[in-house]
């Protein structure tokens, strides 16, 4: 397995976004994951969402921890800087990067092991800070890269490939994020591009921490009878609650999915997402109701998917810290340096 830069062949007939870029411009290095790995579908959805949002690659920053999932930051938008950090610690690197430059967009890719075990502390503190980033968990219920151990998201009764049964209750990142006050919480399935792409688009426009937990089957270690993250199981056991339809601020056109009421939500940056209620009783702005509904569906062994909660009025990290509009890494040194005269004044108190 080796890193190969794909030649960027310009296809004149490839559709261009408002920035004049084609989907190919949002691709990255060739994936080295197993054929059929759910993570690759998520990568494809990210490419699609970036293209559709007409993201300027220069302004995107990709971050990840360690795992098969975390490797995928190399597989999309090669024109963006990326940082593949250490296991479970991506949120702190993202926090620092975001602190340095609030003007860029940050997308973090993690796994269920990376987020829910070794990285649980950093994950919840990033939520608590309402760090302005998209945080995607590529959730397969196992440690893929270390060959199939259960992760903390494995459901009770799941069997490992070698037959071992998990009897510990899972940690659900979605419920966790909701109780911690996360401002954007969604769940989807790697195989459902139609749902996933607009969710990622919406998350990228959200001002604050946007979590998308994506059920993503590991074909090698968790796609057999007895696993609850298999393609088969996932497709059968999820119910779509809310469909997020993304409306870019410039072009106010959307493809409408499904039937029922719609709730438009205006994002901080002025763009809108439309929440299509599949279930008319579902209100994604009501955190408590969202939790109740998710739990109720989980008891029936169903993953409620879609945009499960959003609140657009929570101050994000930089607002909480009263930093200036100008990114901290761009403030000229002359502004930062108090100078020798001020030093003399300060030190007068120590004489």
């Amino acid at each position, binding site marked *: 397995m080796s890193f190969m830069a794909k030649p960027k062949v310009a296809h004149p007939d490839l559709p261009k976004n408002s920035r004049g870029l084609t989907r190919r411009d949002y691709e990255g290095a060739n994936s080295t994951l197993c054929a059929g790995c759910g993570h690759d579908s998520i990568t494809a959805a990210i490419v699609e969402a970036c293209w559709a949002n007409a993201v300027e690659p*220069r302004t995107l920053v990709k971050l990840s921890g360690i795992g098969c999932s975390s490797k995928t930051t190399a597989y999309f938008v090669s024109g963006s*800087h*990326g940082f593949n950090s250490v296991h479970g*610690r991506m949120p*702190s690197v993202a*926090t*620092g990067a975001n602190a340095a*430059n609030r003007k860029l967009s940050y997308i973090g890719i993690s796994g269920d092991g990376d987020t829910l075990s070794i990285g649980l502390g950093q994950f919840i503190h990033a939520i608590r800070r309402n760090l302005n980033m998209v945080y995607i968990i590529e959730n397969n219920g196992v440690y893929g890269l270390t060959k199939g151990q259960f992760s903390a998201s494995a459901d009770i009764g799941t069997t490992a490939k070698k037959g071992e049964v998990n009897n510990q209750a899972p940690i659900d990142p979605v419920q966790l994020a909701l109780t911690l006050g996360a401002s954007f919480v969604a769940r989807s399935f790697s195989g459902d591009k139609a749902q996933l792409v607009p969710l990622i688009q919406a998350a990228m426009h959200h001002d604050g921490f946007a979590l998308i937990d994506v059920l993503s089957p590991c074909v090698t270690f968790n796609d057999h009878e007895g696993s609850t993250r298999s393609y088969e199981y996932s497709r059968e056991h999820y119910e779509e609650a809310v469909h997020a339809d993304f409306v870019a601020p410039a072009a106010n056109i959307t493809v409408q999915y499904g039937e029922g009421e719609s709730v438009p939500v205006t994002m901080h940056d002025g763009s809108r997402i439309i929440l299509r209620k599949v279930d008319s009783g579902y209100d994604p702005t009501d955190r408590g109701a969202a939790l109740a509904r998710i739990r109720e569906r989980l008891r029936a062994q169903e993953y409620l998917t879609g945009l499960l909660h959003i609140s657009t009025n929570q101050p994000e990290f930089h607002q909480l810290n009263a930093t*200036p509009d100008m990114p901290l890494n761009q403030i000229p040194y002359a502004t930062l340096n108090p100078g020798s005269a001020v030093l*003399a004044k300060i030190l007068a108190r120590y004489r």
Partner: protein
Amino acid sequence: MPYAAPDRVNDFVIKIGTVNGTGSASANGLLMKAVFRSGVPVVGKNYFPSNIQGLPTWYEIRVTRDGHRARSGQVDIMVALNAETYARDLQEVTSGGYFLYDSTWPRPALLQMRDDVTVLGAPLARLCNENFNGARTRILMKNICYAGVLAALHDIDPEVIRALLTETYAKKPQLVDSNMKAIQLGYDYAKQHFDCPLPLRVEKMDATRGQIIIDGNTAAGLGCVYAGATVAAWYPITPSTSLMDAFKGFAEKLRADPATGRKNYISIQAEDELASVGMVIGASWNGARAFTATSGPGLSLMQEFIGLAYYTETPTVIFDVQRVGPSTGMPTRTQQCDIRSAAYASHGDTRQVCLYPANPEECFHFAPLAFDLAERLQTPVLVLSDIDIGMNDWMCPEFKWDDSYVPDRGKVLDEAELARIDKFWRYYDHDDDGIPQRTIPGVSSKGAYFARGSGHNQYGAYTEDSREYQVVVDRLRKKWLTAARMVPKALIESGSSAELAVVTVGSGDAPAREAIARLRAQGVKIDYMRVRGFPFGEEVEQFLEAHQLNFIVEQNRDAQLRSLLTLETGVAKSRMRSILHYNGLPLAASYVIDGVMAAVQDHARPAAQLVRP
């Protein structure tokens, strides 16, 4: 070796023993400052427990006309305000010294244990109870009252004290009066009942002009403001917290827009040290000057991330204010016990650039230097201070700032430079100094690269190819050699001896220098070197080779500096003999002198015997 000048004017040590949390700090600071304002050099050492209230605590003020900066190792007058520690406090007084206690209560029999110490009783509590109202005020004033007693005993000018109080309480003038009243109570009592002044007295000098009194953590925090740091991430730990407090305090005043409240910096209290260093790495990678401050336990937690920064070549500034280990150790006591773990922080072939300041002045100046080196070398830089430097009050020359300073951001390619080149290769050595070029996210897609802690080749791509891997780590080694030319050179005083030398690091400087001065006064010919950076420059090895016997003076059990010198230079171990001090108290000059003299007088003694508990 007890050291007592026949003439004790401006040359003695006051030690005050109290109970933690009773507010004696301001009285001690006042006394020390009063001596300093009388133009007489002082040294302040605080021995405090890891506790908020109730455990014994001591403060030591050394009045030193010769301008020494270390502990002398003796106590000439003990102010004992904590009955629980009377016995050990009395024990500590140097023969011929004094012991002052609160005689509100009857004199305990144990104070008769020493007939070579003069015991003085002043009814501090009674005086204050008679003159002040309220329990809290009485306790606070009792502290100020002993300062008054000492002013009379040591001939400290009460007007200097009044001037200091007036400055301190500029906004609350009524406090000046009540404090002065307490001073006067003690002062008058002493004048009436004791033979004032004692031979241990203060006489005005002019030896503190241009000097300030400051601790190293305040100096380092201020240095980070001047360095242009904008991102500070930290997790509270003694003794590094006050460094961050200083940075935040200065930045709040100097970097916040009073109109909008917007701040040109961010201080993030992280969830732990793993996160704080991760944040520093993220922010530095993204082009900000970022730093963290911690102590031993935090440094242990940071190890994995430090390796990531080393291998991804990300500038990372870490202040490590060392405290007694292992493990939680003695959190408020000093040691130099992270020398080894800092130098080789993280797994794999890693070696880290370290700076070793010796005093607050160097803490201030090493701050911008640490950022410059981290960015120039694209690597972690660890600044190793300790409790003695960081939390004690030091007299040092007022810091000067060079307004022509421009931060060295190193080989960062901007948009125009990127436009000019054909292709950007993150880990390629263009200049043969081992330092590659870097780019900042957001500047240009042409500069985009993928930083990773997994194997990568010189172009920045993932690799598991043996040769490609080696090209990068070999270049890192070359960069290390470049670093050796960039860190501050060792300070060397040579030429007096080809036989003997004292070699030390950090806070070993002050006691070692005093020891050398006194040894030379006794006719011992001896040279001196203090290392200030790691990797060691070639001058370090040359100096060691030029002396038959180098005494390596350091404050840890395992001779960590000597280990580093052994590993990183070709010098024979037999040329380096340890003088080790690791009981948690700041090193005193007398300890160094004893160590050197023992060896000089008895060449046959093996080095191990110079190692003391």
